[in-house]
């Protein structure tokens, strides 16, 4: 218990306050919507959003049901994320081992780092049209940097004696990277994957808002044009849920890595 909080709450009190907070939040939302303080069209009540969410799983909107839109977004996400990890992690480890590579790549990386992933959308559209390549490029732009940075940091902070021991035994460069640096930096890499997944998922939604003909982002834009606030909010909830699922999966990976003592 941190002494900043002089008052210690019991478990029941924490749950009570939490419930109170949620009830106040949903109550205020319902009040604003149902009393007509905010035009009903722009702020539907929570239960209406919930009903719409359920309806969207069977009635298609913008050409597909909610699950189908989610599935096409998730597939794009998987491609872009895996590509980011497949290039970012090895490159990060190599940069952590070979100083020249670090010195060559770092200035380029620093120059590109400040380009927001979403700013790649026009080039993505130019290069790939509305095909799957465009969204993958955007997800890659979001997911690649944390993979690279964390693999690099992990490799740089491997304890010297470990590396020196390996070198003394005449281990080659490749084997040092695969058998010493990679296991020693696994914790950092997995932490990087979690950041990557969050940024990649968010970048994909952004990309789908601008160029796409399927996916949850596309669905939201169509709903916005139709002024269907319930659909927009349902899509937001679905996006949040998928984000949580991705994060839970990576947390499980993190825990598994820690259990196996790789960290």
């Amino acid at each position: 218990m941190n002494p900043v909080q002089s008052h210690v709450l019991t478990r029941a009190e924490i749950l009570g306050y939490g419930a109170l907070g949620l009830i106040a939040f949903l109550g205020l939302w319902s009040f604003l919507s149902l009393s007509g303080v905010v035009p009903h069209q722009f702020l539907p009540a929570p239960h209406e959003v919930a009903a719409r969410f359920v309806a969207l799983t069977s009635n298609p909107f913008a050409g597909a049901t909610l699950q189908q839109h989610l599935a096409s977004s998730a597939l794009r996400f998987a491609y872009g994320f895996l590509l980011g990890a497949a290039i970012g992690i090895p490159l990060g480890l190599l940069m952590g081992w070979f100083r020249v590579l670090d010195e060559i790549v770092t200035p380029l990386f620093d120059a590109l780092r400040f380009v927001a992933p979403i700013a790649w959308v026009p080039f993505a559209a130019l290069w790939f049209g509305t095909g799957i390549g465009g969204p993958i490029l955007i997800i890659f732009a979001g997911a690649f940097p944390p993979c690279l940075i964390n693999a690099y940091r992990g490799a740089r902070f491997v304890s010297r004696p470990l590396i020196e021991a390996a070198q003394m035994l005449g281990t080659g460069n490749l084997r040092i990277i695969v058998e010493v640096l990679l296991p020693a930096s696994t914790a950092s890499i997995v932490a990087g994957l979690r950041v990557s997944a969050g940024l990649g998922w968010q970048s994909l939604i952004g990309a789908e808002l601008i160029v796409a003909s399927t996916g949850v982002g596309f669905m939201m834009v169509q709903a916005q044009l139709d002024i269907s606030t319930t659909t927009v909010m349902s899509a937001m909830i679905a996006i949040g849920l998928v984000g949580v699922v991705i994060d839970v999966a990576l947390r499980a990976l993190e825990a598994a890595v820690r259990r196996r003592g790789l960290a």
Partner: protein
Amino acid sequence: MSRRSAIGLLTIATLALVWYLTTMPLEWISPGRFPSPLDVWDALRQVSTTGYANGVLYQHIVHSVSLVVLGFLVAAGTGVPLGLLMGASARAEALINPIFLLIRPIPPLAWIPLAILWLGLGDAAKIMVIWFAAFVPSVINSYTGVRTIEPAVIEAARMLGTPRRRFVREVLVPAAAPMIFTGLRLSLQASWTTLVAAELVGAIYGLGKILNVAQTDIYPGMIFVGMACVAIFGWVTTRLLAELETRSLTWIPLAEARP
């Protein structure tokens, strides 16, 4: 000059040369796919003098930068105090945390359609989206900053009977400051990403608007100019924040302030 910066310069120079050679004399890359240095120069001249996408470059820059700064200040001004409050008060934490957990998984960019529905394509919608995006990192890091203060520091202050207001001003905020700044840096980054996305979806002025129009016009040179501006001004604002950080955290050695 250090070996590091020499190699860095050499890399950038080589890349510039390859860019020039492949786009201009050799024509390996078609001008419809990626602009040549000359195309970029022409686009830059056009947007700075005659203007592009409803305005000249200067207007777009001022518009985007001021929206980012304004949105960031609103988010930091509300997020940091809320984070500090949640860190310092168990009741506030228990009350607010569940709502926060409910809203937090929704990525900031997913708020854009709702913001447009509510507030249209003007500046108000942009500020709302930036606020949502930049708010979360400010809250989380300020909260973590308070919760990770050295217990001895707090106990000492309490033992000396420091009054509450002085405690907040002279113990809580300074001790949490490094984490607060980490949060602010993430908030600033989020502000830029969201603004560019929001302007790409729909805007009247701004750097995102340049990108949007250039995309429809299939104008690679202008796309390049827009992206370069986003990167440059993102970097400038980040540098300014880092400068503010080193000036306000004078009691912490530089190495420690940046984990």
